[in-house]
Structures are given as structure tokens and as C-alpha cells.
């Protein structure tokens, strides 16, 4: 049954991917990429990676779709511009990259293989010891927040930096209150004088 569901979801994902390729309507493409993310999230559930599925569903299918729609609304772009005259070069690049990726998967261990390097070293220690050391049932959380706390701190800073970047590029202005806008524009003119 699980195998059948795997096939159904993967087929739906390929169909969605090809529809994204074929479509020239950008609104449709954004919605389709949201559907693709939702299918990916369902697939992660089948792979028993519920934490990843949760993130994919909320970020991939939810927020990023919304942000792409907001971007479309700002840029007034409805249709993709067609400017590729000669498709041979892109096709060669895609085929070579695809072949390299397939070649790469040949060496990969099978899914769930106990002898795979990723299932061998630290992960066994985490599974055996995290109950005694951290004492919470969700091992994913204990790895993310405690064993790999330094990484998660870095990720939080990445998200923080993203917000700062967006604020610097697009922010303050029109949604903020008028005083702030005036302040900024006066700062800019001061800068020009210098």
C-alpha cells in the first residue's frame, strides 16, 4: 500500500513539474509550485520524516507561495517573457546535469539501509543516548536544539539577516509611517550634499 502511494505521489509530482515547465502563466506557475511543495510534504510523511514534512508544508506550500504571489503583484508580471531563440544549448546543459545527478544516485545507499554511513556513526549514539542525556521524546528536537544548537543559532541568524535584507531593500518606505519616510529621504539628501 505504501509503495502504491509512493508511486502515486511521485507521478503527481512529475506531472506538476512538467505543467510548471509548460505553463507561461506566472500566477499558475506559482500555484503549481505550491502544489508541488504540498506533494513533497506528503512524500516526506511517507518517508516518516514528519518534522521535515511539517516545515515543507508550512514554508514551501504556504509562505513562499504567498511571497511569490506578492512579488507578482508588485512587478505586474503576468506572462513569462519568451526570449529563448535557440533551445539546443539549454537542453544540453539540462541533459548533462541530469545525467550527472543520475550517475550520482548510483553510488547512494538504499533508503533505510542500516549500513549507510548516515545511519552508522553519530545517529546511533543520538538514538541510544538522547533519552538519558536530554530526556525528551522527539529526537529531532533534541538534535536540533541541543546537540546541534550552534547550527540552529546560525540558522536563526540567517533568517534574521533575510529580514534585515528585505527591510533594507524594500522596507521602511511606503507602509511605515510618514515621519520615517521623511527621515530617510532627508538622510539621503544629506548624503548627497556631502
Amino acid at each position, binding site marked *: 500500500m505504501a509503495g502504491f502511494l509512493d508511486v502515486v505521489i511521485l507521478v503527481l509530482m512529475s506531472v506538476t513539474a512538467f505543467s510548471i515547465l509548460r505553463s507561461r502563466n506566472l500566477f499558475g506557475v506559482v500555484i503549481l509550485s505550491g502544489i508541488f511543495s504540498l506533494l513533497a510534504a506528503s512524500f516526506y510523511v511517507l518517508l516518516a520524516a514528519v518534522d521535515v514534512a511539517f516545515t515543507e508544508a508550512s514554508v514551501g506550500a504556504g*509562505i513562499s507561495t504567498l511571497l511569490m504571489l506578492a512579488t507578482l503583484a508588485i512587478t505586474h508580471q503576468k506572462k513569462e517573457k519568451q526570449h529563448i531563440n535557440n533551445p539546443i544549448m539549454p537542453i544540453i546543459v539540462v541533459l548533462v546535469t541530469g545525467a550527472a545527478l543520475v550517475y550520482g544516485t548510483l553510488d547512494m545507499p538504499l533508503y533505510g539501509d542500516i549500513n549507510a554511513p548516515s545511519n552508522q556513526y553519530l545517529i546511533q549514539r543520538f538514538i541510544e543516548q538522547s533519552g538519558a542525556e536530554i530526556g525528551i521524546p*522527539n529526537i529531532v528536537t533534541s538534535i536540533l536544539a541541543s546537540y546541534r544548537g550552534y547550527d540552529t543559532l546560525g540558522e*536563526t541568524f540567517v533568517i534574521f539577516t533575510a529580514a534585515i535584507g528585505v527591510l533594507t531593500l524594500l522596507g521602511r518606505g511606503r507602509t511605515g509611517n510618514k515621519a520615517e519616510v521623511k527621515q530617510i529621504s532627508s538622510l539621503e539628501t544629506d548624503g548627497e550634499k556631502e
Partner: protein
Amino acid sequence: MKHFSVLRVISKLMIPVILLFALYVQFHGDFGPGGGFQAGVIFASAFILYALIFGVHYARKVIPSSATRILLSFGVILYTAVGIAGIIFGGNFLDYNVLGQNNIAGQHIGILLVELGVGITVAATMITVFFVFAGQES
């Protein structure tokens, strides 16, 4: 979209549930799937839904830009402060063992605070990014 009464009523019904679910995901992350990152995104989506239905202008009255900016930094500061607290109580940076009476209690306190920091920063980031995008004059 204010004049679509179905959307307005349903979103008003859904927003408290979404916020509650976000808090559940935040504080239940130790026991089930979820954690600060997912909770932050879900929490932000409630505000984004409000902004979509009632407009960014009214959503900004609910959570002004000054508040999101403070929360944005507060989450990161909370996370770092937990790390530095580890040093102050005699451990390493981000060593939660020394925060509680025993190792397990310390780990629980550390993970709770750290996840809270992640959640606050992620929620504030998503709200900020969406409001800034949607607030552009198109």
C-alpha cells in the same frame, strides 16, 4: 477583499485557531513533530491571513512595524542569551546542562527557551517580509 463576507467571517473564525495551533506546535515540539521554526511560520500566517482579507494597513495596526522589528531581534537575542547563560553558570556556550538543577532539567529549560527564540524570530521575519512585499505601491 473586505467585502467578501464569507472570506471575512471564515478568516475571523480561523485566525484564533491558527494562533492556538502555532502555540501548540511551539510548546509541543519536544513530544511531537514541530518546533520553533514551524510554529513561527504558522503564527505569522495568521497575521498574513488577516492582512490578505482586511488589508496591510489594518494589519499594521494589529502589529506595527516597530513591534515586528523589536521581536525580530528579541528572538535572536534570547537564543544567544541562553548560550551566554551557559557560560555564566560555568559551562560552555549553549551548554544547557548547567541551567537547571540537574542535566535533564537544564536541557528542558534550554531547549524551551531556544525554540521560543527561534519561533519569535521566524514569526517576526515572515510577518515583516510579507508586509513589506504587500505594502509596496503596485
